[in-house]
């Protein structure tokens, strides 16, 4: 039994807008085999994620060997998924699935720097599954819930920073601290994305203001 099995990394739930903003990658130790984490702007680390959405396009962008890129869209943005010879199962799903189709993906965040110096975040799949609309909707609600939990913890940490003299019961939140140092975008953006995502579900009534337009 390996140590890795004992501490399997949890698959975080994160919307595309926040995932694509998670440009800061780090390790917790100097060990070569230590896991890589992407820092989520709402204040958590993600070595693995579970996402669901609509596969809208697939393309083999490889030169010599196959290298498949898929665009997977959720209510807040697009995940860019890349699978090559080292992810044969995921690559074959991208090769064989006719878009549009609902998919769920377990995978790892990867960052890369483009020629103009911007950092992009992509998803390297461990598995891709074709799913139904119910699974996709369940993921949207679940991801909304997990994201709100992170925002709540972030805001608790933030208010503690503003009023350090009050005896706060907010737990220390090292990843909120790290996100605060690394990122500029305000956390409220992700709250707005959550609202947008939930409103996009058919069962939900639109905001009153919109409904009367």
């Amino acid at each position: 039994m390996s140590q890795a099995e004992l501490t399997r990394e949890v698959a975080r739930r994160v919307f595309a807008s926040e995932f694509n903003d998670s440009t800061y990658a780090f390790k917790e130790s100097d060990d070569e085999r230590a896991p890589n984490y992407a820092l989520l702007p709402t204040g958590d680390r993600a070595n693995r994620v579970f996402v669901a959405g609509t596969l809208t396009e697939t393309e083999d962008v490889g030169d010599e060997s196959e290298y498949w890129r898929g665009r997977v869209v959720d209510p807040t943005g697009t995940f860019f998924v890349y699978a090559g010879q080292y992810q044969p199962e995921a690559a074959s799903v991208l090769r064989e699935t006719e878009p549009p189709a609902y998919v769920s993906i377990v995978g790892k965040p990867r960052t890369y720097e483009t020629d103009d110096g911007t950092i992009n975040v992509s998803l390297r799949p461990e598995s891709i599954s074709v799913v139904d609309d119910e699974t996709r909707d369940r993921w949207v609600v679940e991801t909304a819930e997990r994201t709100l939990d992170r925002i709540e913890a972030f805001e608790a940490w933030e208010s503690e920073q503003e009023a350090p003299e009050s005896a706060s019961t907010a737990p220390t939140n090292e990843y909120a601290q790290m996100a605060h140092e690394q990122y500029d975008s305000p956390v409220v953006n992700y709250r707005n994305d959550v609202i947008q995502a939930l409103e996009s579900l058919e069962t939900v009534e639109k905001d009153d203001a919109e409904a009367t337009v």
Partner: protein
Amino acid sequence: MSDVRQHADDIHEQFSDHIDVDIEDVEERLTTLVDEYKVPIDEARRSVTNHYLEEAGLERDDISGGDSEAANIEDVDEPEEWIDLTAKVIELWDPRSDAVAQVGLLGDPTGTIKFTKWAKSDLPALEEGSVYELRNVVTDEYQGRYSVKLNSTTVIEELDEDLEVGNDTSEIEGALVDMQSGSGLIKRCPEEDCTRVLQNGRCNEHGEVEGEFDLRIKAVVDDGIDAHEVIFDKDATEELTGLSLEEAKEMAMDALDTTIVADEIREDIVGTYYRIEGPTFGRYVLADDVEELGGPADPEELLIKARSM
């Protein structure tokens, strides 16, 4: 009574049989740690207790909890709590060390827990299948698993009754994110009471044997907070996949390859949401009751929360 006062009272009681401890002194030590040094009360209590242990030349096991409380096994979620259990000895294991007189598994209607009885505590022997009232046992934790220790202050009383033993059942709702190796159509060692899974036709214990086919799934179900390892036995696998052991064998025979079964199953279940209920064994949950989850709950409440943040 204030929190600190209550703890001071407990500590005072613990030591009252052994040394002359002034309760004001106990309280002052606690207050200093908690108020001045901002030590959490649990840690402060531990530290103060240790101080008096040293002063009295005692071991931690020598003092009683003072107010050990009747508890259910499922409620054990803190180390170093003094409790009373009414439990049945389900199994006795071979102690691995001379310091241990007996080690095994206790059960009550709410669950099971490991127990250790120290040799130096000089307590009567427990018998498998008997039910006991165990007063003054102390809880312990190792890597997230709890156990109880019987010590020299423990009072053991055999009860003339039977006790139904329950399981530690877990309920998990999450996405099945991975299927691990050793899943699908497997072969087990046919030797009596062995049932080990064969690796390349070999049993770790009995060497090369003619294996017996079985179906099982080892999977990871992840709710975004924890990753749980779940085992589906033959029945659970058949129910989950709609694939019977006979069909799986035929499939493997046609393909001249058993891995096709695992591939088929993986495609079917990975990336799907399930609710799983079943007993916990070590780090595994054994899937007793499995339900595939459909659409989400009404998101209205979440939306209200998000808008008000």
